[in-house]
């Protein structure tokens, strides 16, 4: 094995800058996707446990659809197909004129996939509380919807914060998919440096460590939120 080590590639111009900007895009896609995942996944998860057959059906169709198609395929649908199905002006806007088209599309596509996972976590959390406390709540004289709103929802959502940490990490890993539509995030930039300099060891090691650091950071942030919510 002959390999010429050169760790300086990680801070030399322009490669150090590439890594930093890749890190920035990874954080942006992760944050954007997770916001979408929560905005859609929380209501979907709640709908999945509401005492109503219609909302439960909507929730399980959503989860079934969005979890059964690989996220990369969904990303391609949102990027290459959906704009063509829209009316001309709207399609043009999505493709070109909306702010940060690739970042926005990636956040929506990855976010809606992650939302199905979040919905499952929320539903499971609510179900666990429901099995323990619903009979108690009903016996105390609450009507089903009141029991849901006053007992199951607050206790159930608090239980979900732990599993949501895992989902935040999954979203971070999924953010790398955005390279397929041209977002130069961390993984893409490390590959770029490898292609330019052949220093793959250094570039991929840097990316691996940065992902581990982001993961630890996300875990810490979610830990603080979990303590606040208690």
């Amino acid at each position, binding site marked *: 094995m002959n390999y010429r080590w050169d760790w300086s590639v990680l801070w030399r111009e322009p490669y150090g800058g590439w890594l930093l900007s890749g890190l920035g895009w990874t954080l942006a896609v992760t944050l954007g996707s997770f916001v979408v995942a929560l905005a859609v996944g929380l209501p979907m998860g709640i709908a999945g446990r509401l005492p109503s057959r219609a909302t439960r059906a909507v929730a399980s169709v959503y989860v079934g659809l969005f979890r059964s198609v690989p996220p990369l395929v969904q990303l391609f649908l949102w990027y290459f197909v959906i704009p063509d199905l829209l009316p001309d002006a709207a399609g043009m806007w999505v493709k070109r004129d909306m702010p940060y088209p690739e970042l926005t599309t990636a956040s929506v596509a990855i976010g809606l996939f992650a939302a199905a996972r979040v919905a499952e976590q929320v539903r499971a959390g609510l179900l666990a509380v429901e099995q323990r406390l619903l009979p108690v709540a009903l016996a105390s004289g609450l009507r089903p919807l009141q029991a849901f709103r006053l007992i199951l929802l607050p206790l159930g959502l608090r239980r979900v914060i732990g599993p949501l940490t895992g989902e935040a990490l999954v979203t971070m890993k*999924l953010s790398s998919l955005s*390279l397929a539509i041209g977002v130069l995030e961390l993984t893409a930039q490390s590959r770029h440096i490898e292609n330019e300099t052949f220093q793959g060891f250094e570039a991929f090691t840097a*990316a691996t460590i940065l992902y581990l650091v982001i993961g630890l950071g996300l875990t810490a942030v979610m830990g603080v939120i979990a303590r606040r919510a208690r």
Partner: protein
Amino acid sequence: MDDFDWAVILRSAGFLGHGLALSALLVAVASLGGLGLGTGLALVRLVAPRGVGAIVAGYVAVLRSVPLILVLFWFYFLLPIATGRPVSALGSALTAFVLFEAAFYCEIVRAGIAGVPQGQRLAAMATGLRGWQALRLVILPQAARAMVPVLLNQVILVFQDTSLVYVVSLRDFLTTANIVATRDGRPLEMYGTVAVTYLVLCLGGTLLIRLRSA
């Protein structure tokens, strides 16, 4: 937007079929290899001295924390250097998949073993079985039965994961569809076909697993 063109799907069906076959090969190797290696890792963590167990734990934690695409790039780059000769994209992808999925299978197997009540081990020991015999004859069979639905679900996740070989230009199902979509300017037909196929296979599989294990 022109009308939906069924002909392009029919015309490229053979090509897409080859892509699907490659996806199936990736799923088979990644699932079986990952399960084998992952079970090995789980057993090492169970019985090996603490130092070795910590190394395995670190391996599993790192692979579970980084994107699969990065792992694919790692092996695409690393294998030719490590072996000193060119390695095909398929060879490097298969290696990456087995080593990556093993980390996930390791955790599934560990959880399965941990799920067997402690009393089972004690009872087995009380009947005179040694530690290893108790593991092999009493704990693992029960753990295996409990793990079956989770393991089958993991196969579905691996099937979805294999679509990522797109990034090393391997011609799996998605990549073949992508080639036709670009060549013929038919993204709706091609990506639609891919999405519906994955939907039917993965949703069907999920429902089947739920039905059998209910």
